[in-house]
């Protein structure tokens, strides 16, 4: 019965795909998937095989099942371990680990996807080649300073123009447009689509980033929604990372899942967890701006009112002072008298001093003329007797007495030889 059904199906497929005929007979999706599953189940090679590869996107479900992708440099295959088999795996698998999975390859009909149904698993290496390469790249770029915080550019507070690089018709671009149009519609948006997955993605993203720079945007959002590690590995590409590190415009990245950081996320100026939060991080919220404007208005009024009140208060004080002086004007007269007295007193003291100085000067001159040294200079001498007494008259001495004659520069001892009176 089953064989008969398969034969009919095979026949129909040949007609459509090989001979190019088109038959009006239609199949449902379930029928096709069932058919493919049957083909797999007839192939003995798919049973009990060993496949070596590197684990990626590992998920340990709360039901106890394990899901992951097994991959090598070129290709990947989905793998599932149901609880019964997962329980006997002796280690906890991790992304990047190289393992040999023993199991059957079959088709999961609901998704039309072939996958490995694991039975057991053996660890070969903690870290596979792909993971090693990625880690080496991260280390190299980190040593070169590409991830340094001090190199990160500051995001402008009010961007005039925002560039967005994202996939055409993706959820990412829709989210970004929605958030920016709601938060800050004043800005101009330059949306530059790019291929965000696969071989041509690197060149396409770089081209779009260059276009954004050419348009002189103030900030660039590079966004890509979630996906498997393989979908996102383009954002670990060295060429793209280096290009982003050299770009002059601040760049905000939102690549993949919240917890998985791509190398692009490490090099970008700001990393957002989702495209929506990237959009929110590049522009202020209009609601907050309105609030700020209102605060400023209040502040202006308050400052001005305070200034006017201060001035009024000062004016009041001045008025009071003025009134006081007017009232007490009588005192001013006395102040004036005292001031005049002071002046007069100062004048009198000065005069007195001047007079005293003149008297002193006269006396000084007189004293100077009486200085005996000045007399000596004129040729006079002082005569003393044997008792050192001054002889001012010839009557005070006798012939034969010895006298001391004192000059300016020395003394003479002389004897009186003769005496005559005038």
């Amino acid at each position, binding site marked *: 019965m089953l064989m008969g059904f398969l034969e009919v199906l095979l026949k129909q497929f040949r007609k459509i795909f090989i001979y190019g005929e088109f038959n009006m007979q239609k199949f449902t999706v379930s029928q096709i998937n069932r058919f493919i599953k049957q083909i797999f189940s007839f192939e003995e090679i798919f049973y009990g095989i060993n496949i070596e590869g590197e684990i990626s996107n590992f998920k340990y479900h709360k039901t106890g099942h394990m899901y992951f992708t097994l991959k090598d440099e070129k290709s990947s295959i989905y793998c599932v371990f149901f609880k019964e088999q997962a329980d006997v795996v002796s280690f906890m698998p991790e992304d990047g680990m190289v393992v040999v999975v023993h199991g059957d390859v079959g088709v999961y009909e609901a998704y039309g996807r072939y996958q490995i149904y694991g039975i057991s698993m053996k660890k070969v290496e903690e870290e596979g080649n792909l993971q090693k390469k990625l880690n080496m790249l991260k280390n190299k770029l980190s040593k070169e300073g590409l991830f340094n915080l001090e190199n990160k550019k500051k995001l402008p507070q*009010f961007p*005039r123009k925002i560039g967005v*690089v994202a*996939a*055409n*018709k*993706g959820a990412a671009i829709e989210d970004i*447009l929605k958030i*920016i*149009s709601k938060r800050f*519609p*004043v*800005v*101009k*948006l*330059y*949306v*530059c*689509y*790019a*291929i*965000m*997955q*696969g*071989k*041509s*993605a690197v060149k*396409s993203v770089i*081209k*779009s980033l260059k*276009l954004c720079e050419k*348009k002189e945007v103030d900030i660039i959002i590079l966004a890509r929604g979630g996906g498997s590690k393989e979908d996102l590995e383009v954002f670990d590409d060295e060429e793209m990372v280096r290009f982003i590190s050299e770009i002059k415009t601040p760049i905000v990245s939102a690549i993949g899942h919240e917890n998985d950081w791509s190398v692009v996320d490490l090099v970008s100026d700001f990393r957002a967890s989702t495209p929506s939060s990237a959009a929110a991080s590049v522009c202020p919220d*209009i609601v907050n*701006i*309105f609030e700020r*404007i209102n605060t*400023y*208005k209040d*502040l*202006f009024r308050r*400052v*001005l009112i305070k*200034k*006017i009140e201060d*001035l009024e208060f000062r004016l009041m004080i001045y008025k009071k002072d003025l009134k006081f002086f007017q009232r007490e004007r009588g005192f001013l007269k006395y102040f004036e008298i005292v001031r005049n007295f002071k002046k007069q007193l100062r004048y009198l003291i000065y005069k007195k001093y001047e007079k005293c100085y003149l008297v002193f000067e006269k006396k000084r001159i007189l004293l100077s003329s009486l200085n005996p040294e000045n007399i000596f200079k004129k040729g006079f001498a002082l005569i003393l007797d044997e008792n050192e007494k001054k002889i001012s008259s010839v009557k005070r001495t006798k012939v034969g007495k010895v006298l001391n004659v004192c000059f300016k520069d020395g003394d003479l001892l002389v004897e009186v030889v003769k005496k005559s009176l005038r």
Partner: protein
Amino acid sequence: MEFEGEEIDFETAFKELEKITNRLESDKDGLEESLKLYKKGLNLCRICEERLKNAKLEIEYDGEENLEE
């Protein structure tokens, strides 16, 4: 009045507004200058509010037309 009828964009107006706010807060100016700043500030508030109320997101599209591979 300054900025009246001028095509000043939101960013410039808002930055100017912040400057005026800081200056008024610093209380360095006399009454006459403060009054001038006050009027200028209120005018800038009005310009900013108008720009925000009338704003409509302008979008220019470019780049690859391809969808994801």
